[in-house]
């Protein structure tokens, strides 16, 4: 078992997302330091993949940009290592990426390295319940939780997924045209309730959430708010100067959900 549960010990968790290496790895590291200072509970680090098929065009473009600049899995491990050793960063990390990134690195080698660096969880966007065994056993041996996802299309699959889940559940809302507000008010509470019927496990959500108001509303039903959109917008706007602006934003989100 990992230490993910600790992120939820002091009330609602705010979990900012960052795509490693965009615009460069130094900026990513700078943002992580500021996120911790501003009171984030955990940070989701995406290891870019050439074909981020489960995410929208914005993440796909950021990923390709980061890869073109030479980011690699090893460079991301190096960054985490130096944050731990030189910057005294203690905040738990969850990695988000795609099956092939971990598979090609060697599942065992990847999990071992991640575990040594205090990475608590792994989200693999293209590994559903049916394929999780290949990764899950090795994750568990290394004290890493392989995070499961529930979406509005999960329906009768929910009990099966939740009963074998560990760490936390990622509540993914649909990208449809009804908009974020609608999803926060209707879908997220419904999905969180469907998870809690099966097990007592923290539910985090966040697709598309960017404002403190949205975060506050979503936190009425979810245990944690995972925020990507707002961070990506800040990084796109300020580029290498983003760390200076990330802190205030994270603070506003943290206080909105407490």
């Amino acid at each position: 078992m990992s230490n993910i549960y600790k992120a939820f010990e002091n009330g609602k968790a705010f979990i900012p997302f960052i795509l490693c290496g965009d615009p460069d790895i130094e900026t990513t590291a700078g943002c992580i330091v500021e996120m911790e200072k501003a009171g984030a509970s955990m940070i989701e680090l995406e290891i870019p993949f050439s074909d981020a098929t489960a995410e929208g065009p914005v993440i796909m473009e950021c990923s390709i940009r980061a890869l073109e600049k030479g980011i690699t899995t090893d460079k991301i491990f190096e960054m985490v290592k130096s944050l731990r050793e030189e910057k005294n960063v203690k905040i738990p990390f969850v990695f988000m990426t795609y099956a092939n990134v971990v598979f090609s690195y060697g599942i065992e080698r990847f999990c071992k390295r991640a575990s040594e660096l205090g990475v608590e969880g792994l989200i693999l966007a293209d590994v559903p319940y049916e394929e999780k065994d290949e990764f899950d056993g090795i994750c568990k041996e290394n004290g890493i939780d392989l995070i499961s996802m529930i979406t509005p299309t999960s329906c009768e699959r929910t009990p099966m997924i939740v009963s074998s889940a560990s760490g936390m559940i990622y509540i993914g809302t649909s990208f449809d045209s009804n908009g974020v507000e609608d999803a926060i008010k209707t879908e997220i509470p419904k999905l969180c309730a469907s998870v809690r019927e099966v097990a007592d496990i923290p539910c985090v959500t966040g697709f598309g959430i960017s404002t403190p108001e949205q975060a506050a509303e979503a936190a009425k039903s979810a245990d944690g708010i995972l925020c990507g959109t707002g961070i990506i917008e800040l990084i796109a706007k300020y580029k290498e100067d983003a760390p200076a602006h990330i802190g205030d934003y994270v603070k506003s989100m943290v206080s909105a959900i407490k």
Partner: protein
Amino acid sequence: MADSKGRFGIHGGQYIPETLMNAVNELEVAYNRYKDDPEFNRELKDLLDNYAGRPSILYYAEKMTKDLGGAKIYLKREDLNHTGSHKINNVLGQALLAKKMGKTRLIAETGAGQHGVATATAAALLGMECVIFMGKVDTERQALNVYRMKLLGADVVSVTTGTATLKDAVNACMGEWTTRLDDTHYCLGSVMGPHPFPTIVRDFQAVISRESRAQILEAEGRLPDYVLACCGGGSNAIGSFYHYINDEGVGLIGCEAAGRGIDTFETAATINTGKLGIFHGMKSYFCQDEYGQIAPVYSISAGLDYPGIGPEHAMLHDSGRAQYVAVTDDEAVDAFEYLSRMEGIIPAIESAHAVAYAKKLAPTLDKDKIMIVTISGRGDKDCAAIARYRGEEIYE
């Protein structure tokens, strides 16, 4: 323990986001319900025979045989199908299945445009909405097919993300499917993707070898020594191989696109240059870098310009049952011109990859050997690009 479905040896599976799991499960249930249903099969056979023009002929290429001076060469003429390629076999099956499932809209990826044209055709025939996703690079090199799809009533979306080719069109299709599962069927064009697609597409394409087996037995009274087909994702190849897999004496050869050569980065020869990985819903071989990032592949043929190969081919490669060879752009273009002049048949540049290897292999074999080469499509769509390759500008 979870049960991983749709395995071919260690390959295949369902590596897709949770958002798509219900869609593939629904498709699997529907396919199992209809695949042996007499009424469904009667309707499909009627479409294949009376609309697509099946069976396709098995043609003895006498001039080519004499010219090469070795094995007797037969061509399985999928280029004579309605819409000009083997793609229609799968599309009619899937469109009919989608209709039975109550879907009203078809989406599909396309590389060379052949699968897009076939899907747009089936949608027009069956009164369904149709959206085709095509990499921007491919829309430029296959402009004629873009026009054909629009003429048939389809919307064509030009995909600009990533390398703007076939793999990115697949990405866009998967994304689109996630947002509209209710009324939309993703009519995947090759034996790839998550289960059940590799099985469904193979079953619908297996008509190629079902026919050719009966045809060669009729013509020669025995099975062929070799079956050759070009292989990108691998739908015409698996269709050409399928009914011979248990006939040990029949050599199965898939011809991959080497692009500018397998020792360059400008290649799409997956078995020859790729390694085991997980992408587009399946475990198989992929062109990728040491960190698992999918490589930007290249081939003169838009239809073979794909960084992966179907999981059943990966298994046939592992077991040694099939052999996968690499054919360069140059060799394919030579074969394109050769077959045009020798037999009066202009093959698709994809199919020309198989013709190119046949040209190499046939002279090394005795005259009593027999080979079948699948001509997966017609080459009209490629004329402008081949002219350009030879330094001649023509206007379509």
